[in-house]
């Protein structure tokens, strides 16, 4: 019996791992960074300096930028993922097309308090989405969305 179980594991585990790797290879890794911006304070997370600079061009009153949470998920084509972010709000992401010969991925993002946005994007960089949603602490919800991996 012990030999039978060992044999099953020896044959089954590599098959399982191979299958898992094969599935991951066909997926797009989606990263969602949840940022909260507010007018109280001036601290900016050093990783957010670029996005803070661009946001402040539109609204200089937003002076404090912090990362609330970070999410990452590997999605297959047409697969929908709902990221629960904060205060019972969520972000829905669907990969419409995997990376094409131009190194673009088409995804759809549905953020709180707005309709769905479908866009094509290069890999490895973030698109900021400044939403209308404000937390109970009067912080503005900003999302930054990235897809990976990129082709060499």
């Amino acid at each position, binding site marked *: 019996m012990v030999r039978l179980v060992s044999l099953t594991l020896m044959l089954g585990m590599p098959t399982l791992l191979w299958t898992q790797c094969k599935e991951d290879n066909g997926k797009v890794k989606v990263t969602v960074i949840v940022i909260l911006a507010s007018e109280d304070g001036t601290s900016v997370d050093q990783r957010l300096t*670029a996005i803070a600079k*661009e946001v402040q061009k539109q609204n200089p009153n937003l002076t404090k930028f912090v*990362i609330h*949470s970070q*999410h990452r998920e590997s999605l297959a084509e047409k697969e929908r993922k709902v990221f629960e972010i904060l205060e019972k709000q969520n972000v829905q992401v669907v990969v419409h097309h995997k990376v094409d010969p131009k190194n673009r991925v088409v995804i759809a993002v549905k953020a709180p308090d707005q*309709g769905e946005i479908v866009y094509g*994007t*290069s890999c490895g960089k973030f*698109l*900021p989405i400044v939403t209308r949603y404000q937390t109970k602490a009067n912080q503005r919800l900003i999302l930054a969305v990235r897809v990976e991996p990129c082709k060499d």
Partner: protein
Amino acid sequence: MNPAHEPPWRPDPDVWSSYLSGKLTDRAMTQRIERWLEENPAALDEASLDRSLRDLCELTPAPPPSLHEWNVAWQKIQTRVPPTPWWQPVVWFAGLAACVAFFALFRSEPSLLEEKPKPAEAVANHPAPEEVFAVASPDEIQILRVEGSLFSLAVGELPLAGLLELLETHEFTVRSIEPDARDQMVPHVVSGTPMIWAKLVSEE
């Protein structure tokens, strides 16, 4: 106790029946019964009547049942015997197979029959080496969700490892933007560094 009040002796019914049928082998009991008969004429008459009945039975034996009568009786017996359940042979076969497998297993692995030392004895005889805790490499850890503004982890890689790098204009193309279902608000695309902006009422 006064012996005059005791009931007169009489042989036990089984012993008496054995005597009448001539099968009593106890000689002392036989002699005692014969003395008792001499003293009890009524008992002697009873014995004579029994012998007469036996002789009569021997002279008029009942005829044995015919083959047809035996067959009828056998069929009646068969109809009253419950049938054997279908699973009974399966259970027997499974039990037999389990026994064969059991003995085959212990024949091939005799160590299984050996009594294993108790944990304390095992530790005393073979002290366990110090356990080495394996540390996962970064490749083996995948972070799916991180709360808070962490900058680094002991192991694994944060979704945002370094600076948050933004897309450039040529790296981004809007396909469609749906209006909000509640108020039909449509966010606009900020030119220059691509950014989607949903204006608040105070920003309009």
